[in-house]
Each structure stands twice: as C-alpha cells, then as structure tokens.
C-alpha cells in the first residue's frame, strides 16, 4: 500500500511543467468561474491552463518569492499595485476585469432594517464581522468605507476581524455576530443571510479584480491570449453566472 502510494506520487511528477501550459495565480473567490472558462478555452483549441488558487495576499507573497506564474488575477487593486511597484508585472497588460460591491448582511430571520450604514453605530449590534481590516481585501474596503462615512472609530471596538470574507459570512450565517460586511457575490451565494443594505457604488470604494501578465513569463504571448480571452463576451457571461459584475 505504502509503496503503491509512493509510485503514484512519482508518476504524478511527470505531469509537471510541460510546455504549452499557462500558469494562472488567481484569487480563491474566482475558482469556479475560472475553471469553467479555462475548460471552454481548452476545448476551443487554446493552451492548457493550470491554476493556483489562494488568497490574493498569499499569491502576492508567492510571486515575490519567484513563483512560476504567467498571469496574476487579484481580488484587489492593492496587491496588484504592490507587485507593479516591485516591477513584477507587465503593467501594459493590466486590466480590471470584474467589479463587486459591499453589502451589509444580517441573518435571514433578523428583524434589523437598514436605511443607512450609519445605523451600525446602534448599540444593539454588539458584534460586527469584517475581513481582517489590514490584510483581507473585503475588510480593507469595508474599513475605508466606514472611515469615509465617519463611523469607524465608533464601531471599531465591536468589530470582529476574521480570516476571510467567507469567514465573515459564516459568522453571520451561524448567528455568532449580529451583522457583517461582505461582497455582494458572497451574500447572494448564501440562503442563511439577507442583504440589509447595499453600499451604493457612488459612496463605496471602487472594488475591482485586476489581471495582468507576470514579468518574466516564459510564454508571454500564449498567456496574453488567455488574458484577452477572459474579457471576451462568453467569459464575461460565465463570470456573471457566478454572481460577479463584469466591467463592460
């Protein structure tokens, strides 16, 4: 048994890094949509696409350490800016592909009604779940917004910072926090929460998912083809199917 497993692993190694393959480092929230788009791309004669899905800050760290990525598809501008500053992406190819908006969510059976985000200052909301406001993109955006409308300092003591936007959603779903701020795409995914208020795009921060070629890609021309493919109508439709808002 043990030996068979080892042989299996050794066989696996042959599949590594063959030519004509594009490595895409993409934010975890894009997993389902991108897998579907890549399979259509391959069927229509495109190159084989290999993904590495993780949190954008993890991917940022990995690319800085010299990971063999061809394309970086981030869930926030800050991580892309960071790599651009470090000269690790080809900024000519950088494009925003998707957008998202922030929503305030409560449990489906909660009686809370929001007419304005300022109501978060109400003391009946004892615990407010946010992505870690200094590292998780959704948390960073939420903090920016709350600062902009001037209530961050007031509610900061009641903020429960969590490890990802999914964890913030789960906290509200399970009733462990009274309210949370998450992306609209995540909120639409869940039957156990309802959107109490959507942050209007005019008030909220600009949330975009940029993609770009990574500097030093060994197959820049092929990777560029897939990058362009992501913005074709068929791909955008797939993103929309998974709840993303596409950039026209």
């Amino acid at each position, binding site marked *: 048994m043990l030996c068979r497993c080892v042989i299996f*692993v050794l066989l696996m190694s042959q599949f590594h890094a063959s030519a004509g393959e594009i490595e895409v*480092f993409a934010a975890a*929230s894009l*997993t389902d949509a991108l897998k579907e788009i890549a399979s259509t791309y391959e069927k229509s004669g495109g190159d084989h696409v290999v993904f590495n899905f993780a949190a954008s800050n993890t991917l940022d760290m990995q690319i800085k350490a010299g990971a063999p990525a061809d394309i970086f598809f981030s869930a926030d501008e800050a991580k892309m800016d960071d790599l651009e500053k470090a000269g690790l992406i080809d900024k000519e190819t950088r494009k925003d592909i998707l957008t998202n908006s922030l929503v305030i969510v409560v449990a489906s059976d909660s009686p809370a009604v929001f007419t304005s985000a300022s109501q978060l200052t109400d003391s009946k909301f004892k615990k407010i779940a946010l992505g870690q406001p200094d590292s998780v993109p959704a948390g960073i955006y939420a903090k920016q917004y709350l600062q902009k409308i001037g209530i961050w300092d007031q509610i900061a003591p009641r903020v429960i910072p969590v490890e990802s936007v999914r964890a913030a959603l789960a906290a509200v779903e399970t009733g462990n926090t009274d309210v949370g701020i998450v992306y609209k795409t*995540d909120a639409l995914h869940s039957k156990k929460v309802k959107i109490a208020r959507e942050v209007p795009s005019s008030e909220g921060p600009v949330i975009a998912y940029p993609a770009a070629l990574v500097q030093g890609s060994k197959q820049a021309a092929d990777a560029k083809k897939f990058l362009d493919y992501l913005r074709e109508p068929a791909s955008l439709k797939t993103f929309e199917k998974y709840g993303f808002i596409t950039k026209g």
Partner: protein
Amino acid sequence: MTADDLQVVGLTLGTAALSTLLIFPFGVALAWLLARKKWPGKSLVETVVALPLVMPPVATGLILLNLLGRHGPIGVFMQNIFGAEIVFTWKAVVAAMAVMSFPFLVRTARIAFEEVDPRLEQLARTLGAKPARVFMTITLPLASRGMIAGAVWAFARALGEFGATILVAGNIPGRTTVMSVAIFSDIQLGNDGHAYQLLGISAVLAFAAILFSNQFSKWGATR
C-alpha cells in the same frame, strides 16, 4: 467520490507516505543521538527540531518558500544540480509535510529509546556483544514499537498539514491540492457540502491510522 476527489486523496496519501519514509531514518537516528549521547550543540538542535511545533505553520511555510524558491539557496542548488524546481510541485508538498511532521517522529522515537533499560544493553556488552550488535539486537527491537508509533504520528500530521503547504506548494488542482487545502478551498467558495464529504474521508483515514497504531502496539505487547 469523483475522479478529482480520488486524485486528491491519492496525492495526499502518497505525499504523506513519501514524507514519512524520507524522514524516518533521519528521525530515528536523531532520536537515538538525543536519547543516548551527549554532544555539543545538542540543545540547539533539539530546539530547532521542535520549532515547527511552536511556530505558526504559515511562518514555517514562508521560511521554506524563501529557502526552496527560485531565489532561495536550496532552490538554486536543486535547480543547478538536478534542474528540478521544487516550489509549487508535489515535491514542495512533501517538503512541507516532512518539516512539519519531523518533530512528532523524533519526540516519540526518542522516548522509545529512553525507555529501553540500559542494564539490558550493559548485560549484552558483558556477554561480549559489540556495540553495533547490541544496538541491532537489543536497542532497536525494544524501541521499535515507539519508532513505528512515531512514524504513524508523523504520517497523520502530514495528512492534515495545511499552513506551510499552501504557501510553498500552492493550491494547484490536480497537482498540489491536498485534502486540507481542498477543504479550505471549498469553504472559501461556499461549497460546504463538498467540504464535509472530504472531511468525512479525512476522518475515516485518521481513524484507520489510529486503529492500525493501536493494533500494532497490542501485537507488539503480546509478542
């Protein structure tokens, strides 16, 4: 279980088994040196080996990423000698598992060596056995149960390894996605149902490993 799930389970079992086989001889040798010998730098080595137990796994992963990466000393060395890239391949999965599970093997095997009664070894020596023969016929057989228990511990720890793995090997479906990473991905995506399925499989594997370990010690005890 889908074909993808089977691949994930197979990769996880395979890499964990390989990691355990790789560390076994080194872990046992070090455990013996720690249990039976006095040497300069012993406490330093002891501390370094225990570090992965106390450091956050993500921090261990970051250190590994910088050591094994394209610009890292070990990464450059491997690239030059074997032309092999480690990070973001199954090799990185094995490396992360090996480092994270090593202390479990060493600690358990060390206790096993310490529990071997030195008088038995002395007795064999007075009967004329050479040190190597004493080690092979007295020490090793008496410590073998503890060594195997340590290996099972290390294997179980490797099966669940997440923090260091996701940094140094990534989450590349079909290549480096092991069970813990797949479960994490499912949770991130809201595929809770699938996460629970994989969790069920993990639980069965853990149960089997513990059962094996218990059966083995019973067998050893009645031998």
